[in-house]
Structures are given as C-alpha cells and as structure tokens.
C-alpha cells in the first residue's frame, strides 16, 4: 500500500500545470476524500485518453472522470461486502446501479457476500461523443475477489478483469451508467 505522501507525489508528477488529456495519459490517484476521512480508501484509477475520438478531452474532464469512477468502485466494493445498497453514492446510475442493487438483494437472500480487494484500474477512453454526452471506456482492473457464504470461503480469485464502461456527465460530476465485465469472448 502506497503512503499518502507517495500517492500525492504521483498525482503531482502526472499533472503538469496544463496538459491536454487527448495527447497524454492522465493518471489520477484520487485522494481528496481519503484525506478528509482516513478510513475511506479510493482505488487508484489511471485514465489514458490518448487518441480519443471523435472528441478529445481536457485535463479537468479527465480528472473528474477518474474521480467519479474511483468513487463508484469504492461504493460498489463496500456494498457487495456489506450487502447494503443504501450506502451507494450518486456516481452509479442507470443499468450499472440497477444491476448492482439487484445483485446485493440476491446476495442477501442467499446469505452470500463478496469481498473485493481493489488493486487499481487502468481506464482507456475509447469513445467520446462530440456533443460531450457520453464517454465509453475500457477498464483493466486488478481485483482479488472472495465469495463467502456466511463465514465460509467459497471461492477466491486474484486476476485481471476487463470492464466496458459508459459514463455520462451531470451538472457537477460524471456518472457510471453502464458497467459490464467483458472478455475477448464478448466481442
């Protein structure tokens, strides 16, 4: 686990005063919330917007996307372990939220829960609509997933996972609207 100082340094290194996100990879180690409430850890999210079309993105947009995505994953990981959908923030909406809420309900019914150790995400932006209404991203996440029935460990897996993500902008943040795990077989 990186220290706060190291992570902040990474953040500074990766954000020169003004960088066009379209031509450089943005790395966002999102720590703002972690600083104010130490017990809450956001996963590390790196966003690469190189070659994004048909519209490039600016640095602030990239930062907002990485931040929103990190919040969504933090909430998702918590909810899947606690089996409580009530603590979900506003970052997950639409299909992504519906499916997660459904999964939590099913877990609760079966007495099952999932513990996820989130080792970080590498987001690659693949499509950004010219009117700015939607962005599609491919996430390569390193996750350690354990599935429990009560106190019994049923299964454990530490592997790379790929997600197809659809994010849309709101008034002051980006929302995760669709989050589907994919593999080479999906295409």
């Amino acid at each position, binding site marked *: 686990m990186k220290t706060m100082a190291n992570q902040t340094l990474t953040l500074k290194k990766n954000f020169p005063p003004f960088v066009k996100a379209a031509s450089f990879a943005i790395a966002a180690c999102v720590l703002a919330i972690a600083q104010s409430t130490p017990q809450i850890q956001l996963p590390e999210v790196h966003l690469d917007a190189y070659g994004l079309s048909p519209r490039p993105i600016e640095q602030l947009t990239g930062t907002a996307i990485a931040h929103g995505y990190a919040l969504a994953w933090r909430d998702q990981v918590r909810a899947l372990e606690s089996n409580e959908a009530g603590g979900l923030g506003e970052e997950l909406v639409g299909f992504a939220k519906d499916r997660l809420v459904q999964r939590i309900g099913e877990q609760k019914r*079966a007495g099952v829960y999932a513990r996820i150790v989130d080792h970080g995400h590498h987001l690659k932006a693949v499509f950004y609509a010219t*009117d700015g209404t939607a962005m599609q991203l491919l996430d390569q996440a390193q996750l350690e997933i354990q*599935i429990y*029935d009560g106190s019994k460990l049923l299964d454990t897996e530490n592997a790379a996972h790929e997600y197809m993500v659809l994010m849309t902008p709101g008034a002051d943040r980006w929302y995760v609207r669709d989050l589907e795990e994919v593999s080479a077989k999906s295409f």
Partner: protein
Amino acid sequence: MKTTTRCDFAWCKRVIGLVLFCMLPASVCAAAELHVPAIVEAGQSFAISASGSGQATFYLVGPDVVVKRNVNLGSDLRIQSSDVRIAGPHRVILCESSSCESTTFEVKAAQPAHLSFFLHPSRVPVSFPDSIEGTAFVFDQYFNLVLTPAVVDFRITPASGAGFSRQVPTRNGVAWMRVGSTPREGKVQVTAVLGNVEEARVIQQVAAEACELRMKAVTSGKMVTLETDPVRDCSGNALPDGTVVSFTKIDKAGKSTIDIPIKKDVARAQFSIDGPARISVACGVISGNEVALNGKL
C-alpha cells in the same frame, strides 16, 4: 466445454503441507467435476453437468444474480434463462462438505433489440458541413451492450429533397456518424436502423445567416421609414420571425441604433432625422446596404 476441479482443504494444507497435498490422488480431494459451456447467450437456459454422487450446494454468482441451492451430483443442473440475462462472466461453485470447486462461463449479449440513439443538435443551420451528429448504442433485449460488430444504417430524410443514408459499423457496441445539413429548412428525420430495430429522431433545420440584406427608405418630412426586402439566407430560406435586424442612423444628433425583430419575412423601423443622415442595416454578422438621405452624403 470447460472442466475445472480444485482441492481446497485448509486442514490438508496445514497438516500435510503443500507438496504432499498436491501429490494426493485427485479422487481423494475432488469427488465432483463441473462441466459448463464456455459461452452462453443471454436469456438462454442451459444445463451444467456435475459428476460424482451425493449432495452438494450449488452457487451461481453473476453480475446481477446469486443462486444457491442443494443439488444431487450426477445429474444435470438446470440454469434458468432468468439467471443469465446479464452479460459477463458467471461463477459456478459447487461445495461438498468442506471443499468447493469452481469454474466460470461467459454470458454473451443476445441479438440487438434496442438502439439508444442520440442526435445532436436539435436545431441546425442549413447547408452547414458536418453539423449533424448521431450516436447509436446497440443493446440486446436485456440492455447488454452488443459488442459483436454490426452495421447501423443511419437514414436521413429531409422535409424536402432526396433522402440519403450512411452505413456505419459499430465499434464496442457504438456507431457514430456525422453529416452536413441539407439546403432547405424544415424538419429532418434521422432513423438509426439495425435489422428490424429502428429508432427515429427529428431535428429542425433553420435558415442560415442572412444573405444580400437590403433595405429601402421612404422619407416623410423629418421622418424616415425603413423596410428590408424579405430577409433570406443564401439558399433562399426565410429567416424566422423574431430574428433581430439592426438599423443604425448617423446624423447631426449623433448615432442611434434600433433593433427590430423580423415579422413576416421583413423588418421595419422608423427614425426621425435631423439634417443629412446615413442609415445602415445589419443582421447578425451580415451587413446590408447603406442609404444616404437629403442627398448630402
């Protein structure tokens, strides 16, 4: 078909040690074997076979589903269509007393059934290149993004003139196109079509900037009445009522401007003038003619 077995006795690992554990015959550790298809289509029921005998607890864990039930080994386990509606990997776990084994299968999106179609902007000036943009997201009936490449046909139907279409292949479930607006004002319908799925949107083409803006002046004593010719763009479309035309007068009293909205294609204004005067007209960024009064200019 995919088969996975796994030995997972914690006590075994602790007491005998990893090396010895792995040398144990498979039959000691794993009595049951799971056979699952590698890929299934969303919403299709199918069977998983679990070899062995006796009872076990079966779990299916997917993006929006968790199933737990007691099963008899040696028989097929039926997976309901409602349990595999959402695309993505699904984990199958089979537990006998203290040991569990697991494997995964992939649920792939079904055939396209919905198009989520965005057309931008809602109003566009005529004859403007690359001004109309459409984005279509392809979903199946369960709203899984269909990642298998497909071709979306964007059919553009203007209010007047011939329609045309653009065929765009999807990439990661998204098709995107950009076309210019046509020369005539009015509604333009753009329909995204994929197989028997259609989604239509309508935008409005409006007149572009004014073209060859002209006015005439009629004097009556110290008053001058100004009236433009019908204000049209370069394609002959009338600018909509409410578009502002600015008349500017310069005379002895100084400079004075009146902004008048177009009404029934023309804009009218009246000035009082003090001696020689020159009056100009403009609409947006377009300047029209200039008139000189009292023959002094």
